[in-house]
């Protein structure tokens, strides 16, 4: 570290930033992140963008490369008006789970904010992406950008070839099933980018060799016998019930053409890529917030940033981790930043200065001194649900004054089932953990039968949890979308578990 010599010179003392200051600050942050916290991160790529570009990125899942679809235009239009009217601010950063890990900094940020954001995204989120088991197992950080590039080009080509409407119809329908388009339990087949590209290249080569101008307008309109045989073999391998509707449709739909199957696969792969993020909101944000909080304080304690900067930092940090209470008009559920940060700070406290209660609740690590190791272990091996179940301490429950409610739609009252007291801690914790179980909040819909040689009706079943039915407002619209992809009748039954 060349910067160690300059230890006690202040890094910046004005709100303006420039690339030299960014670089120096980055180096100082990196030293703390790697040598003090011992984080393990992907190479960072930090990009400076304008607010308009931030809006752009927002509207397409925060990805720098995305295929074109009207819904992204709609989200952009909505975000833009919200931003211009001042209803919402823009996020200070967007970070992408890729290798190298790309973080976007907005040019409007002050130097202090840039430092915060670098610590938060380029080290906090980055470490989490690289180490958490869900991401390691279920996403392909190395391949995602080239895959999106492929997807974008492929879809643009389909639009040219088959028309916007045709492509839109498939994408609309596939988007409607994104929540039901992931493998939850068994490991998904890899993106296997290399294989796929090789296969496509082989195909292109074959086309070139057998090039015939007459056929040029109809590439891949129908699949050849080999492909069909391969696909049908896969279909025979699927064991019903199948939870991944997009996968089943992609393989087994009687009417889709090869390019349409490819579109469905693209949407399915993107849904799968984002699936871990949905399950680790609290942990991911908590990890990033904990890291930026630790690093900014370390910078201050080392005399690298001044009073002004630390005050500005504390101001924005405290608004990030603000948790409105349930009766506050601003309340819209539990703030993942607040909960994650509080739990992780508490783990540190339990390691360093445990109380009797902590020793009873967390015999494994109370007083374990090495809080870095304990946290890193948690970050690597848990998701929100299991993390809360394992690590939520009575102190955090007391601080948040958490209470659990039993809400039966048939009753005209709700009952308080547990509060933050001796008797209720465990139940509150279980209930809170369950709130982060996607299986409880997303409709669990499975393919139960489809007679491909007979009537071709697709039978779906909603496995109801706790008596919760599908909302009638969207149910029929989604079924219509499924029929677009399936080409024949689709029957959806709801079954109480």
């Amino acid at each position, binding site marked *: 570290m060349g910067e160690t010599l300059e230890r006690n010179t202040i890094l910046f003392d004005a709100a303006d930033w420039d690339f030299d200051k960014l670089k120096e600050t*980055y180096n100082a942050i*990196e030293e703390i992140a790697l040598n003090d916290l011992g984080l393990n991160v992907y*190479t960072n*790529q*930090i990009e*400076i*963008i*304008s607010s308009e*570009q931030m809006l*752009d990125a927002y*509207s397409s899942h925060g990805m720098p490369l995305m295929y*074109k*679809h*009207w*819904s992204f*235009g*709609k989200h*952009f*239009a*909505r975000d833009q*008006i919200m931003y211009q009217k001042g*209803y919402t601010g823009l996020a200070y950063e967007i970070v992408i789970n890729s290798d190298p890990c790309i973080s*976007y900094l907005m*040019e409007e940020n002050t130097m202090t904010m840039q430092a915060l954001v670098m610590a938060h995204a*380029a080290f906090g989120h980055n470490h989490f992406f690289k180490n958490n088991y869900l991401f390691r197992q279920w996403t392909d950080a190395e391949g995602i950008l080239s895959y999106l590039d492929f997807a974008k080009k492929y879809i643009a080509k389909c639009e040219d070839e088959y028309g*916007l409407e045709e492509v839109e119809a498939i994408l609309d329908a596939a988007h409607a099933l994104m929540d039901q388009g992931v493998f939850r339990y068994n490991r998904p087949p890899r993106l296997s980018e290399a294989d796929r590209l090789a296969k496509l290249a082989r195909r292109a080569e074959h086309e070139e060799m057998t090039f015939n101008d007459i056929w040029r307008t109809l590439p891949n309109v129908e699949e050849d016998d080999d492909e069909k045989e391969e696909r049908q073999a896969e279909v025979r391998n699927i064991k019903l019930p199948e939870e991944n509707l997009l996968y089943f449709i992609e393989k087994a739909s009687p009417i889709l053409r090869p390019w349409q199957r490819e579109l469905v696969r693209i949407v399915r792969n993107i849904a799968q890529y984002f699936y871990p993020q949905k399950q680790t909101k609290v942990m991911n944000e908590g990890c990033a917030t904990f890291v930026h909080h630790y690093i900014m304080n370390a910078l201050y304690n080392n005399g690298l940033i001044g009073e002004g900067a630390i005050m500005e930092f504390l101001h924005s940090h405290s608004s990030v981790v603000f948790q409105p209470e*349930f*009766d506050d008009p*601003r309340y*819209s559920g*539990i703030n993942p930043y607040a909960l994650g940060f509080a739990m992780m700070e508490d783990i540190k406290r339990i390691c360093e200065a445990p109380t009797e209660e902590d020793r009873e609740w967390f015999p494994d690590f109370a007083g374990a001194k090495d809080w870095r190791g304990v946290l890193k272990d948690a970050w690597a091996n848990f998701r929100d649900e299991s993390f809360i179940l394992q690590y939520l301490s009575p102190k955090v429950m007391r601080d948040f*004054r958490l*209470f*659990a*409610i*039993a809400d*039966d*739609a048939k009753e*005209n*009252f*709700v*009952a*308080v*089932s547990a*509060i*933050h*007291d001796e008797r*209720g801690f465990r139940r509150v914790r279980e209930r809170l953990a369950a*709130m982060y179980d996607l299986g409880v909040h*997303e409709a669990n819909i499975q393919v139960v039968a489809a007679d491909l040689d007979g009537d071709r009706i697709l039978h779906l079943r*909603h496995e109801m949890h*706790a008596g*919760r*039915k*599908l909302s009638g*407002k*969207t149910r029929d*619209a*989604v079924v219509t*979308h499924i029929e677009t992809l399936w080409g024949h009748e689709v029957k959806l039954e709801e079954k109480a578990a």
Partner: protein
Amino acid sequence: MNLSHFIDRRKNPKGKSLGNRQRFLKRARAQIKEAVNKSLRERSLKEIDKGEKISIPSKSTAEPRFRLDPDTGKRHPVHPGNKEFGEGDKIKKPPKGAGRGQGKQASTDGDSEDNFQFTLTQEEFLDIFFEDLELPNLVKRSLKEIKATAWKRAGVTVAGSPSNLNLVRTMRNAHGRRLALRRPSTREMNALKERLFELERIAQPTEEQVAERKAVIAELEAMERRRRWAPFIDPLDVRYNAYEPTPVETTAAVMFCLMDVSGSMGEREKDLAKRFYMLLYLFLKRRYERVEVVFIRHTHHAEEVDEETFFYSRQSGGTVVSTALEKMLEVQTDRFPASEWNIYVAQASDGFTQSGDAKRCVEILEESVMGISQYYAYIEILDERELEVFSSEDSGAELWRAYRGFAPKWPNFAQTRIARPQDIFPVFRELFARNKAEAA
């Protein structure tokens, strides 16, 4: 240490999401159009040209997903901020509708269930607004001497200005010529020079080597000569991009806007008339690059004014409508001969004029104006109360009745009434709808 780098993306091309936006607008076209039309009725004169925040029913752009119905089954949420609740407490649910969604206000949400709000740019707004409107009877195409020219690429030439140098052609010619004339390449010469240096370094050369040295020197000199003779680039090689002027066919059209600004026209009427013209003006400006617009306002005396004065300045006085028609004819004969121009006239008035003047107006129309006009639109601005009185097409103010009498003879004459701002748009559509243009 990890390698890391910073990239400045701010200069990247903007509007990455433009394609998405176009797809979105296309998708919700019908709803957006309706919203645009509605919003236009409520706009003030100065705002008419601006972009607009519009709100469309979100149904057309819904993205349905399977959702669990919040009103069924059992749920066990956990909330923060307990104050006085104890285990086992029962709390009555708030009545349906009230107290729901208290967290995020639906009004600011933009994407609430019923409506989706966003902003259209001025471009998009006017595009949608004027879609399928057109000037009727644009028949006298290219009668007028064609003035507009555009420069078109026309091959390459040997003469031209340096800015038009065609580098690729020039270099290709030079290359071909150098090959044909066997110009010694620098590489060949360097090789020989290298050999020469080697020979010169030899302290006591043999005779053979002396002879070779001489030969090499002679060769090099010959090469130099040849190179001078066959230069790297010769003026012969140089080529320029050629452009030649090409006439562009344009349709010459002029629109006369006649407006009554006399005392009998109240502020409200003037505002209505101005809105109508503003719309007309925007429409023409957008659709026809080559349409001339002439603004004439009148009291008991007519004058040609510029756009700014026409829309924004005030004036009042008596009313003699025919003066405007005379003025219009004067301008027309002076600058816009009927043999060369498609002529359109739009006239707005409250229908009151000096007694006897209505007759005079009809005379002028019949004798000269109608014969040369492609289309003549008369818009009468009414009081709202008058609208009820004159509910029939036949009754009306003096001018209306006078025009009514002669109108049937002229298919290219239209008259209509406006009483409220919200009438303007339908009337405008009626006058300029595309199918009407085809039918006429």
